[in-house]
């Protein structure tokens, strides 16, 4: 694979691993992140992995960009023989429809399906976490079944509660914090994607898979209670 090195001003460098969205290219991005973190380079302040790029933030008064490029190139040589850690599947409970998923009827109608069929399709296959961004804890997911793809709402809602699960065109996602948004909301999860006072603060990492599963109102209440008391354990399995 050919990597491209592009400055993002004088405080970050972009290492571009490809020009499209693919799990293969994203694997290269994650390998680069792990490899460069291992190097513990003085002057690097942060990393932002995305679909097809790794952004490396640095302090240019501490390390010259040429030195940085030399390190990037020597680390890149190791990628082919590197193994990524085993991927986790994170099982996310969702209460579909009703007041928590006001757009479920619309998504069903738009796709000529019943509400139960939409739920069945949405919760049947795992989605890949390509990256996080946009708001703290928001996952860009790939792999939603396109039979439930639905355009965004024409007028975005001003407030969508945290935990809301939605569909926008061919993508699905979860709102980690209350925010405005135009996604078709089909349900809500009681688990928290972002807990600033806990370790780890975020539920997902890039490279994980999300498996939604439907819960009843009673189960939702029970899980909410456990989450509030800090005892709910999100189920994690290994990707097979």
């Amino acid at each position, binding site marked *: 694979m050919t990597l491209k090195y592009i400055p993002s*001003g004088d405080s970050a460098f972009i290492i571009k691993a490809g020009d499209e969205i693919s799990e293969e290219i994203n694997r290269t991005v994650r390998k680069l992140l792990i490899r460069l973190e291992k190097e513990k380079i003085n002057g690097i302040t942060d990393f932002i992995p995305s679909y097809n790029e790794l952004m490396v933030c640095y302090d240019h008064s501490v390390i010259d960009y040429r030195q940085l490029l030399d390190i990037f190139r020597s680390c890149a040589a190791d990628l082919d023989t590197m193994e990524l850690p085993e991927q986790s599947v994170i099982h996310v409970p969702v209460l579909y429809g009703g007041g928590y998923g006001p757009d479920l009827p619309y998504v069903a109608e738009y796709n000529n399906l019943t509400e139960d069929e939409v739920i069945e399709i949405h919760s049947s296959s795992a989605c890949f976490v390509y990256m996080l961004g*946009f708001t703290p804890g928001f996952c860009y997911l790939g792999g939603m079944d396109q039979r439930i793809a639905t355009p965004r709402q024409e007028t975005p809602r001003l407030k969508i509660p945290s935990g809301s699960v939605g569909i926008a065109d061919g993508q699905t996602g979860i709102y980690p914090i209350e925010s405005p948004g135009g996604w078709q909301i089909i349900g809500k999860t009681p688990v928290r994607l972002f807990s600033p006072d806990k370790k780890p603060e975020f539920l997902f990492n890039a490279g994980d898979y999300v498996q939604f599963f439907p819960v009843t109102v009673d189960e939702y209440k029970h899980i909410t209670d456990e989450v509030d008391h800090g005892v709910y354990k999100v189920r994690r399995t290994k990707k097979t």
Partner: protein
Amino acid sequence: MASVIINSAGLLTTVQDAGRYGYQRYGMPVSGAMDVFSYELANLLLGNDPGAACLEATVSGPEIVFTDETTVAVTGADMGPHVNGMSIALNTTVIVKKGDKLGFTGLKSGCRSYIAFGGGIVVPPVMGSRSTYLRAGIGGLEGRALRKGDELPLGEAKEKIKIRSIPGNLIPEYGHSQVIRVIPGPEVQCFEAEGLRSFLTTEYQVTAQSDRMGYRLSGEMIIHKEGKAGIISAGISAGTVQVPGNGQPIVLMADRQTSGGYARIANVITADLTLLAQMMPGDTLRFKEITLDHARQLLIDRRGVYLQCLSGRTGRT
């Protein structure tokens, strides 16, 4: 423990430090001081740790009462700082006594003032930083802007009181019209030659839709190549200039989202983010392209300012 009490908050006053690093991969913005240069100087003037938390006041300053003797330094925008009605110098260590009141008469230049206290503000850090990130309601004091009646605890001063000041010629001028230097961005090839010409040769105005997240500018439309305004969502760094389909540039600032989907035409250099952070709606700017080596030299020159500042002038206890 010493503290400061907020008598009135001003338009938007928040606790900020050097920023929240290490969590951008989870979509957590860095936040921190908008004008990093002025923020760092304020701490240096007081002998504070480099990452100590201070106040960032926007457009209008707060009124603050001190519960104990301490030191204070005001840097950045000139909002006419005074203690008990007696005007005080910017960019200088000032000793205040119990009961003294720090106030501001009104904005004279710039947009954001930094108010540091000896020992720094010691609200509980969240994810390694005391910076306030308003959109998620975390950091600072209860994740929000300051209000009348708030009390902020101060840390132990790191050294005996020393008076320091920074020569005026080392402080940038906050004009209403600036040249802002940039490095070409990763999607420069997504723009028509004419679009790049607009970007680098015409004037852009700071609009009212500018805040800690980003500065939205208006001016001559920057034309993309057909269908090239959108990109696969990717990282954004401090000062990234995005151009959405409407051709009007947005410069991403301290509370920027970590990733975005618009073509990145350029990046404002670190040294000039200081100038931009002090610009107000209605101010105008021109972008100018420079090299990475030149940008680095400007950062190293800034180190020189710090050293001059650190050497101090007189010791006093």
